[in-house]
């Protein structure tokens, strides 16, 4: 029973890793993340100015 669960877990983990790789490697993701990073730079500048 435990062995079966271990195998199932490994398969599940493998699937979600593959899906995560597919999701996070689409070409647009890089631009998306760059924009988000820029947004947070701006956000922290704002917080500093408010403090």
């Amino acid at each position, binding site marked *: 029973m435990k062995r079966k*669960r271990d195998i*199932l*877990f490994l398969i*599940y*983990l493998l*699937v*979600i890793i593959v*899906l*995560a790789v*597919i*999701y*996070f490697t*689409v*070409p*647009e993701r890089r*631009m*998306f*993340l760059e*924009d*988000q990073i820029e*947004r*947070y730079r*701006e*956000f922290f*500048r*704002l917080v500093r*100015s*408010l403090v």
Partner: protein
Amino acid sequence: MNILSYIIVNLLLYTSWFLLLFRKRKALSFVDRLTGTFVLALAQIVLTEMLLGIIFRRLHMIPLMALNLGISSVILIAVLRAIDVKTVINEIRDEVRGLVRLIRGDVILLLVFTVFVILIVYIVFLGYLFPPYTWDGLWYHLPIVGRIIQSGAIQEYPAPFMIDQFMNIFPKNIELFFIWQIIFLKSDLIVDLSQLLFALAGILTVYSIAVKIGVDRRYAIYSGLLFFFTPIIILQSKAAYVDVAVSVLFLIAINFLVHRRDVKTTTPSTLLAGVTAGLLLGSKGSGPLFLITMSTVILLRELLRYLNPFKLFHGRVVDRRELKGRLGGYLLYFLIPSILIGGYWYIKNWVFYGNPVYPMEISLMNVIIFKGLYGGIIDPAPDVILRLSPLERLIYVWLERVRYYLYDSRFSGFGPIWFVLSLPSMTFCLIRSMRRGRFGFLFIAMVLIVTFILYPRNWNTRYVIFIIGLGALSIGMVLEYFSDRMILKIITLSLVLYTALTSNSPAITPEKIGEFVHLPPSKRDIVEHDPFNIHLQARQEYGYWRWIRENVSGGDTLVYTFEPLFLAPLWNGSYTNRVVYVKAGSYDEWLKRLEDEGATHILVRRRSIEDRWIRDESLSQDSLSGGRSRRFTLLYSDENYRIYRLVH
């Protein structure tokens, strides 16, 4: 005073229903009574507004408040005689303690919950800081609200433009809830936070479903919270849209149709499902689809229990008499209440337009049953979508090949939790449930998946938010199954953090937040906001929008003479002026109509016929009005528009 009346009327409304449902605590869990309270309060709001707006044509603040205070007081007096308030307080205290204990006992869950609380505070802060800015909100959701508030009546309005026709046709339950957020406060400040309440109700609902199908409470909390960590839900929580509301009502109705095994009577739960389904039916034109799928799956479930093919239902089969009784119960407590509560809009359309779902044409095997204007969705799908097969469309959108999230994005919205965790979890749970005969989960999955498949344009995430409920439920079940695997929880937390940090609207930038924090509340308008999603089309309208907001007072009547980009900015922020479209073939006829409408302000396009009429009259000092003292005074002018004051 406005804030006080809003607080009192809401406090009594929600308290009365919560206490009433307390009497049904043997049939309904604590969480179901919370969502039940929300549903019954919403039903009271909608029905009292319909009563005042349709029958009496007196949908104004005082009658609405008096009626609701009256209803709530009667319920409270009746209930307080029958229950001990101390027991209620003890129950709330015990439930909160239990919840805190569960969350504190799991570090990852505690972190997810902390992120959730921070996000809620942030959304409320943005809701307070920024005015309603979303496209459909300004285009028709809020104008529907404005028209009803100004006339005190829920009725058909003249429809000179296509959007007016749609505003007449759309079911309006959620707009009635928007009215509730404006009419007491005399401000549109929090109206676009209305859907946040639905999002919170969605969390409770997913949690409750999970508990009912046997998921441990800790993992049920995971499910509930994960439902919220969806970009489209986070962004629409501050948007005057109806998509989250519609999907959450659907989930609530399903939740009330899933009965705990230990309860003796299912009537209160089924009745709450009926009330919810009625609210859902009257919230969007796609309402009938939800009702039909729910009813069909219920029918199928009961027939399977009766026929018991392949001996599927061990010890839970029903005989013919029971089957009749159960189906009768659904008819009486589910279907009839739902049609009574939500059917009005369709009957009204049938009477006015000869088609309950006008302008959609309904035909069966080339036979037209209800004549309409078109057979599908009028808005064309993007080319990239049209080139793909139905499955490819879903994958394309779920991969979110976009640079940013938006409250109505057609190419994104479900986030990584859906793609990475929900899809494999759903597959896992479906296979496992089929093998183990977990019919509770299969019933829920069947309703949601069938509705998802049948829903037109199901690739558009905002139309099918309900499917996220199934995903979140499945993740909770998988986390429970692999409960000893910390890595899975860490992956979940990582995706939660990613979603929380990236579900930002580019329409609300940190720079704007900083700017708005320093502005006095009266200056925080849409013009100052200048969101990118409307900037290109709306910037030339900004001048008169601001002028109207700052200068048109309660009781004034603003007449417009052309099709504006958005109608909502023609109302001042408190929705206390009237907005009327007046067009005529001749100057005299136009003047007469202006007088009939009691026009005080006239908004015209420069160089339009009305502008020329007014300019001509100003030039001829002695107006041609037969001695009547009628004068137009120019109050506002820009490159494209003018506003005149009409002195009678």
